[in-house]
């Protein structure tokens, strides 16, 4: 048991702040799985960013001389039914996955947290109505809601982002609301009100920054799921459309048809999805443990 510090100098001496530089090293040492996740994410981002330089072939160019070619020196992971290079399509596919994942998470988390904080801030009848509306959205399984939105907006990458963001909104709103309820009771919110600030300023400048931790956790956790959802939607033909390179799309149709003769078409894109989502999940878990010990799953 340490002696309780009596003076300010003693306090400073007793608890030296750890150097900031060590944060990353600390993270790697204490959370090896999280670091592995981060590594996968970095690798995926690099792939997406440099796709134009490192992909050996054009991902949408058909080569009818090399249809369903087995993995070889020319095509490391083989080619598909149109003679398109599987490796190149996987590399370009990381762009689609990241774009849809980040886009959906960003939109979903932004809208969700705004609704959540506003609902908590105004309270009373507004809160009640917002919560009931959220209940309605909760009654839809995630993929059904996403499918319904696709049915309305149509397919294509942009619409898929919105479709995947939609189920994210109520979930984020609910989590953020519960954190914001506590923040609302803080004296500084009262102070801001007493100073006569408008509602939007209090919500955006005073409350939102204080519920950033749960928002970040939700958004990261949702990234992996969004990539998976995009793959599922594309797989059933209601997501990103041909000839765009997308992992889920690569598993559709011919990949199943020719599974026996050309298994590389079915194996590698699925591996890419799993690895990508695995990375985001690992990182998200560790981030949650680090940021919010209350939600820890040990």
């Amino acid at each position, binding site marked *: 048991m340490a002696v309780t510090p009596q003076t300010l100098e003693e306090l400073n001496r007793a608890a030296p702040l750890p150097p900031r530089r060590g944060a990353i090293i600390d993270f790697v040492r204490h959370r090896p*799985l999280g670091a592995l996740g981060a590594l996968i994410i970095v690798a995926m981002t690099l792939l997406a960013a440099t796709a134009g330089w490192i992909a050996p072939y054009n991902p949408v160019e058909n080569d009818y001389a090399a249809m369903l070619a087995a993995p070889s020196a020319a095509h490391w992971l083989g080619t598909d039914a149109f003679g398109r290079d599987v490796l190149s399509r996987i590399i370009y596919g990381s762009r689609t996955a990241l774009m849809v994942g980040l886009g959906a998470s960003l939109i979903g988390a932004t809208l969700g947290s705004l609704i959540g904080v506003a609902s908590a801030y105004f309270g009373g009848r507004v809160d009640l109505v917002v919560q*009931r*509306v959220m*209940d*309605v959205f909760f*009654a*839809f*399984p*995630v*993929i*059904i809601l996403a*499918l*319904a*939105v*696709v*049915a*309305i*907006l149509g397919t294509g990458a942009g619409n898929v982002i919105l479709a995947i963001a939609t189920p994210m909104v109520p979930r984020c709103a609910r989590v953020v609301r519960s954190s914001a309820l506590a923040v609302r009771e803080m004296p500084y919110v009262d102070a801001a009100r007493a100073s006569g600030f408008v509602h939007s300023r209090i919500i955006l400048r005073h409350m939102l920054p204080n519920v950033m931790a749960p928002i970040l956790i939700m958004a990261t956790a949702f990234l*992996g799921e969004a990539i*998976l959802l995009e*793959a*599922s939607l594309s*797989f*059933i033909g*209601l997501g990103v459309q041909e000839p765009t390179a997308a992992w*889920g799309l690569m*598993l559709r149709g011919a*990949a*199943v048809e020719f*599974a*026996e003769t050309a*298994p590389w078409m*079915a*194996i590698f894109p*699925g591996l890419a*999805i*799993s*690895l*990508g*989502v*695995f990375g985001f*999940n*690992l990182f998200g*878990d560790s981030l949650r443990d680090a940021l919010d010990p209350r939600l*820890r*799953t*040990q």
Partner: protein
Amino acid sequence: MIPTLLGVAVLIFVLLRVVPGDVVEARYLTQGSQFQSQELMDQERAKLGLDQPLWKQFTMWMAGIVRFDFGLSMWTGSPISEEIKLRFALSLQLALMASLIAQLLAIPLGILAAVKQDTWVDYAVRVFSIAGLATPSFWLGILMILTMLIVFHWVPPMMFTPLWVNPWQNLEQLIWPALAVGYRYSAVGTRMMRSAMLEVLREDYIRTARAKGLWMKLILSRHALKNAILPVLTVMSLEFAFLLGGLVVTEQVFNLNGLGMLFVEAISHRDYTLTQALVLLVATFFLFVNFFVDIAYALIDPRIRYR
């Protein structure tokens, strides 16, 4: 529950209708005959009741629903209850099998990981469950079919055999999709089981039980599991959506003509009545599951009482 369902009904009704295009267009325009006369299309619309004002369409739909009459499918023209009945059995059986597999995997694995915390067993279970979350069930399905093709030269059958016709053939057909969905579904449960168990194992009464020399098996099954299972139940019921969602894509892979397949068809045909009925059905099902889980709490944990 009723207001939520009414909200669901209004939402899906409005959402479907704000988009340009309807079932008549989907039918005639995709058939390549763009020059279909406007008159004929209007006639078709009148036949389906699509020329009525929206509020009238909605009240008619609602009036049918309270009598459990879902109307006719706009695409096939046959009663929706018939369409759904054929496929509901398949999807429900698949969902139950997947759910059973998930529980059988999640509970023992979660307990094992918690008891052997921070050993290789624990790490193996955790990686297994995180991998389950990351692997798309449709890909797992493809891999299964692929393996069966190459090893046993087995091809997924074209027709579905109901349980009451040939139980063995039916189970043989459904076990693989059930495993593909169940594995993914189990991951959520495993993680929750592990963390809940870890928490409970640190409680005083567990230490007391150990101190008085009770068998570890008995402590786990009688003292710890009962207290740790509640959050697992919650999470698994909430994640039931995973299961239903997993079915939508898995049915495509295994060529099973279930509700998921029907839903995708209904959407692409812009079949309003069928889409509405399916969404409402799934939402009702989902709400009922949550409701029964609430009741199950009180049965498992006598401390919980509902007034």
